[in-house]
């Protein structure tokens, strides 16, 4: 398994852990109030830490174990995998923006807007990283 693939696995698990905690712990009954919006902003800090700490620790650990691989530039196959993953992530982004527009038209604002946009970003990231992991595993 290449250095970049390992980092992708760490990012995937980190995203699931950090934002899984966020969405499961969020007080949804307050979502449509200004307080609900502020709560979601505050909850972003621990969610980001839960995501970032394993990312930094994992990158450092794998870079120390295989410094040569960590310093390698992305080759053409990896660039293609990168592009394909990013392309796949475009679709959940579009869906999420439409979902947010629909929600706002129907009076779901404040925390709902923030959370729908955040869920969109997280879903798009999961699709991007997941698709890249799939292509890494498949060979291309």
């Amino acid at each position, binding site marked *: *398994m*290449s250095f970049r693939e390992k980092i992708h696995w760490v990012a995937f698990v980190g995203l699931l852990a950090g934002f899984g905690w966020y969405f499961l712990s969020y007080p949804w009954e307050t979502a449509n109030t200004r307080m609900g919006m502020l709560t979601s902003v505050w909850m972003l800090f621990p969610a980001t830490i839960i995501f970032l700490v394993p990312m930094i620790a994992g990158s450092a650990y794998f870079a120390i174990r295989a410094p040569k*691989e960590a310093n390698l530039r992305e*080759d*053409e*196959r990896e660039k293609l995998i990168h592009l394909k993953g990013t392309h796949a992530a475009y679709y959940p982004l579009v869906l999420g923006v439409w979902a947010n527009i629909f929600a706002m038209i129907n009076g779901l604002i404040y925390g709902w807007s923030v959370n729908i946009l955040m869920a969109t970003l997280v879903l798009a990231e999961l699709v991007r990283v997941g698709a890249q992991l799939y292509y*890494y595993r*498949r*060979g*291309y």
Partner: protein
Amino acid sequence: MARLPFDNDIKTLRFLSDEMTQGDLGDKVGVTRQTIAAIEQGKYSPSLEVAFRIARVFGKPLEEVFRWAGD
């Protein structure tokens, strides 16, 4: 996954070149070991540049490394 319409002899050529590893070949060509493995297994179609670089490492013309096998 659709199989590529060409085969290659990279594995044999590596063996004949003092049992060169995939990592060594990757270093010489400028790609990762995993990319060499994917090319060898016919999972990834390399760019023309990488194909030429691989052939140059073995001192062979391109058609002795990669062979068209499709229709």
